């Protein structure tokens, strides 16, 4: 090798993924490096593309319901809630109050399960191996409640258009109460492990900063936006499914770095417990299914309905042509839009930060690629 090439200081192009363990799935990031410094990135996605939107056009409204669980598979209940709300909007019906309360409980439980998986894997990426065991242990409790309620742990298919199919099982309320009581000390335990840990702070502080303006420019929502200091949560801004009845705070931080996003999500788990505690005390009696016919056939029209999924704003834009199948069902995935900001967040950072930033965005590739 001639000396000139050996000492050459040109850039190095490095492929990270699609089988890299810390890209949380099949994400391929092409990094342009100058030593350890990241000069630029390019994300290659689509390895998990299943054409969910095309499938929707070829299924009836009820048949498409189980497919939405398979987009963001760690927060399947949230996906189902968004889809059911969108079709209900098109049909111009509303789920009965009892169904709404149960929906809120399960969605919040799912938010906790999603954040727990995020915390465990994110800590694992950074190098802290212990939290993942504890997080998955508590997540197991949440999944057991899903399994008892609707018969599946991950891809739940818990809600139906118009309300719910399953009535709660005996002891549902008590199990939720027990979970809430058990969970808050566990969050404190995670924080004890991580929040003040010098390695954790050193790896996360001032890494991957995204300011509030940049967030808006990139359309980034969810905990990433709240960590940049924007007090915005769809559950408060445009309440759906009865969220206006519950008292909870929107946690925000100012710096918009990776550490702040961690803090925001930890606080969000506590707020979810608060919502669940309130909701479980007053589940109204009554029917669980709204006035929806056996065949779901919305009038011609279109609607965009979005909810606050654990990752950010999850929207469904459904166009109906008056038949039993959606004419077009567009999913606005939070992970896809959030991932777009990755380049801005890691440009100029170090290669080790890439792992931290991907972890903190909390992307699920099933949802990015759909």
């Amino acid at each position, binding site marked *: 090798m001639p000396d000139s090439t050996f000492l050459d200081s040109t850039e190095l192009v490095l492929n990270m993924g699609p089988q890299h363990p810390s890209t949380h799935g099949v994400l391929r990031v092409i990094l342009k490096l100058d030593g350890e410094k990241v000069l630029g990135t390019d994300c290659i996605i689509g390895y998990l593309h299943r054409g969910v939107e095309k499938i929707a056009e070829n299924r009836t409204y009820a*048949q498409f319901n189980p497919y939405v669980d398979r987009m963001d598979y760690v927060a399947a209940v949230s996906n189902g809630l968004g889809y059911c709300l969108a079709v209900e909007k098109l049909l111009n019906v509303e789920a009965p109050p009892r169904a709404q309360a149960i929906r809120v409980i399960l969605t919040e439980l799912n938010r906790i399960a999603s954040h727990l998986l995020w915390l465990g894997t994110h800590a694992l990426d950074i190098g802290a191996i*212990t939290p993942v065991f504890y997080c998955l242990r508590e997540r197991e409790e949440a999944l057991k409640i899903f399994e*008892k309620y609707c018969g599946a742990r991950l891809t739940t298919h818990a809600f139906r258009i118009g309300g719910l199919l399953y009535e709660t099982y005996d002891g549902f309320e008590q199990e939720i109460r027990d979970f809430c009581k058990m969970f808050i000390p566990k969050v404190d335990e995670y924080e004890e492990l991580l929040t*003040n840990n010098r390695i954790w702070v050193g790896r996360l502080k001032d890494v991957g900063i995204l300011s509030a303006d940049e967030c808006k420019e990139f359309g980034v929502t969810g905990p990433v936006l709240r960590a940049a200091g924007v007090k915005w949560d769809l559950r408060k801004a445009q309440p759906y499914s009865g969220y206006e009845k519950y008292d909870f705070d929107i946690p925000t931080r100012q710096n918009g770095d990776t550490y702040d996003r961690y803090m925001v999500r930890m606080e969000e788990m506590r707020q979810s417990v608060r919502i669940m505690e309130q909701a479980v005390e007053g589940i109204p009696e009554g029917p669980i299914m709204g006035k929806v016919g056996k065949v779901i056939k919305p009038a011609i029209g279109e609607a965009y309905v979005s909810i606050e999924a654990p990752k950010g704003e999850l929207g469904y834009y459904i166009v109906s042509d008056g038949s039993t199948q959606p004419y077009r069902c567009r999913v606005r995935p939070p992970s896809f839009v959030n991932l777009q900001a990755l380049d801005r967040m890691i440009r100029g950072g170090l290669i080790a930060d890439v792992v931290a930033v991907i972890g903190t965005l909390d992307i699920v590739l099933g949802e990015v690629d759909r």
Partner: protein
Amino acid sequence: MTGLLKKIFLVDLFQGLFVTFRNQNPKYIYTEQYPAERPKVAERYRGAPRLNINPDNGETLCISCNLCALACPENLIVVTSERSEVTKRKELITFTYDTSRCMFCGLCEDACPVDALELTQDFEMASYTREGQIWDRQALEEGPKPTQYKC
């Protein structure tokens, strides 16, 4: 000053280690010894499909209405039937269920008007061949027979 002392005495690290040691207590063991110790799944668990038979006379409960096949998002149920000369009712001939494409959403179960098709609590459905994943009427009525390991 206190910050510096905390740093020197590694307070933050010992704080975390303390949590780890607290959880070392054997009463917190969570692992299931799977093949020996079988998990107990919930009552509503959606697992292997089963075609129920009437326990009194051993006849199938299925009335061949084809509603499950229509409800299935993956179109994986095929029901064939024949109208009986004697009773003038449809009688089930074959019922195939492709478990390799099933996503256990439970829509067929909801659609069944006589509770003949049911997703049961069996979850061990592995097979050595693709064809083994396609269950015919007999397999559906008998249910899966997983190997029991002795440990």
